[in-house]
């Protein structure tokens, strides 16, 4: 049992662990690199922006520094608006995550490289679109600020409020409030699909971070929840107090995301609301108290926008 044995043992240990990491990290990296962004992935990446988890451009996770998605009625498509100062999406800094062909199209036809020249701080704001290349049928990102001269502030000002969706801020809320501890974003194999919809395909989440698939399900899968239930009103009641619309739900109340004032600028009296609700549950009142409509810039609005965007 001289020292020599341990020298050999250490080398064998290195070989064993290195071999294992080679198989589980190095080999699959080739397969994962090949993934080409689908239209779904481009939409997810452009709606959530740089990162929906903790990052330096939103250190207190207030949903700040996030893009908005705007429905352009005249064009019949979405614009992804990054107001001045908003951190550019992942594809601008790491275009290779788009996949070879989508990267090429975005660079050549979409002029994405011009967005990279602006730097990550994005001083003038940026507008992106998703287009389909007619020849290859592949989607690509169009940097509309360069190709069409669109200004972020102008696009935002021209849009009606119901056409503006704060999905990026909403995804931050989804992460911060721990929605993913109980709701997966990955329909399971087999029967699950009949209820919760199709599982994602390779390339459906290129550039998305975090993917927040979740693992421990205590409520339904949400990957396609917006297709099952597109009612903003229902979502509003459900987030304020899930027991209003589903008496057996075990979901927590997220009334604190409303902030202090409602959409009309009225102060929300939570104590009174709870007292009225308790009276309603005790049978002293035939109807539950009204749920305040969340303000435009409230966290609740953003979270609802995000959940409804999960088509």
């Amino acid at each position, binding site marked *: *049992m*001289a020292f*020599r*044995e341990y020298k050999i043992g250490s080398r*064998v240990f290195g070989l*064993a662990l290195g*071999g294992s990491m080679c*198989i589980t990290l190095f080999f699959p990296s080739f*397969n994962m690199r*090949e*993934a*080409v962004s689908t239209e779904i992935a481009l939409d997810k990446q452009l709606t959530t922006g740089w990162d929906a988890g903790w990052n330096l451009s939103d250190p207190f996770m207030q949903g700040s520094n996030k893009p908005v998605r705007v429905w352009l009625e005249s064009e019949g498509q979405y614009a992804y608006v990054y107001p001045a100062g908003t951190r550019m999406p992942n594809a601008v800094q790491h275009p290779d995550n788009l*996949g*070879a*062909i*989508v990267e090429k199209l975005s660079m050549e036809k979409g002029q994405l490289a011009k967005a990279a020249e602006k730097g990550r701080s994005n001083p003038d704001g940026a507008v992106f679109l998703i287009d389909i290349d007619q020849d*290859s*049928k*592949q989607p690509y990102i169009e940097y509309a600020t360069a190709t069409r001269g669109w200004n972020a502030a102008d696009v935002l000002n021209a849009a009606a409020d119901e056409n503006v969706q704060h999905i990026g801020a909403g995804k931050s809320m989804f992460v911060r409030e721990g929605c993913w501890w109980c709701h997966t974003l990955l329909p399971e*194999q*087999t*029967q699950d*699909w*009949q209820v919760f*919809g*199709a*599982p*994602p*395909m*390779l390339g459906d989440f290129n550039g998305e971070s975090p993917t927040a698939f979740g693992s421990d399900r205590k409520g339904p899968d949400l990957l396609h929840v917006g297709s099952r239930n597109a009612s903003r009103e229902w979502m509003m009641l459900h987030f304020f107090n899930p027991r209003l619309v589903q008496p057996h739900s075990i979901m927590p109340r997220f009334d604190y995301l409303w902030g202090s004032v409602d959409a009309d600028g009225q102060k929300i009296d939570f104590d009174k609301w709870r007292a009225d609700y308790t009276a309603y549950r005790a049978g002293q009142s035939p109807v539950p108290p009204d749920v305040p409509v969340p303000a435009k810039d409230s966290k609740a609005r953003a979270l609802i926008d995000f959940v409804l965007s999960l088509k």
Partner: protein
Amino acid sequence: MAWIMTNPLATTNTPEQNERDKKLWESEDLGGITEDNNRLPVPVVWLLLLTTLTAFAVTFPLWGQRPTAGIYVNYIGSMDDPKVTSAANDVEAMKVLVEMHPDSASLMQSQLVRHPVTMDELRALRPQIEALKNGDDSGIARPCARTSSDLHDYTIIGTSIVCANFEGNFLKDQSGARIPAPDGTFLRQRQQPWWDQGYTIDIFYVIAFFAGVVAVVKRLPPSSWQPTHGHDH
């Protein structure tokens, strides 16, 4: 570091090295702990062998867990049968269909049991499936990169048909080369393969492991020898 292969089942060390090891083993105090030199009990060896075989056997996709678009094809083929069309209502018609195909391609039977279908769903699926069989995927919700007439490449979600999310083996053409897909990648099989490079790596990996452990263990003094532990420990 000589390897003595005269009796490799006992030890591959030289007698001198074994004597040195034995002496150290008996004299050294490792914090008041001593070790014996027993071999792995024979039943445990069998258990390990069984575990290794089971690991492969249980992982082979012998029973496809995921429903494919192919499982209802026999039902759809018999929808115009007079026995079905003359049934009193849809529920009866569905019963007739199920009875007409008692062992509907045995491997798919378990899937059919887990995925019951109604006549309304079959009516919605029928045109899509028939078009797919003819190589037309224009009517389905999410087609594959290359149209396939093999229905097992697709998955049924409710009444819509989508490409299965399997990233299986690469498809090869007649010369053995990979087939490029429109998006610049290569086409993959959309079914759970019975064999892929994962299993190949596994076999080499397991063999390397057991060979390595046997080599390590056979560098020790033979298991017929047991250290005598003094009271000073």
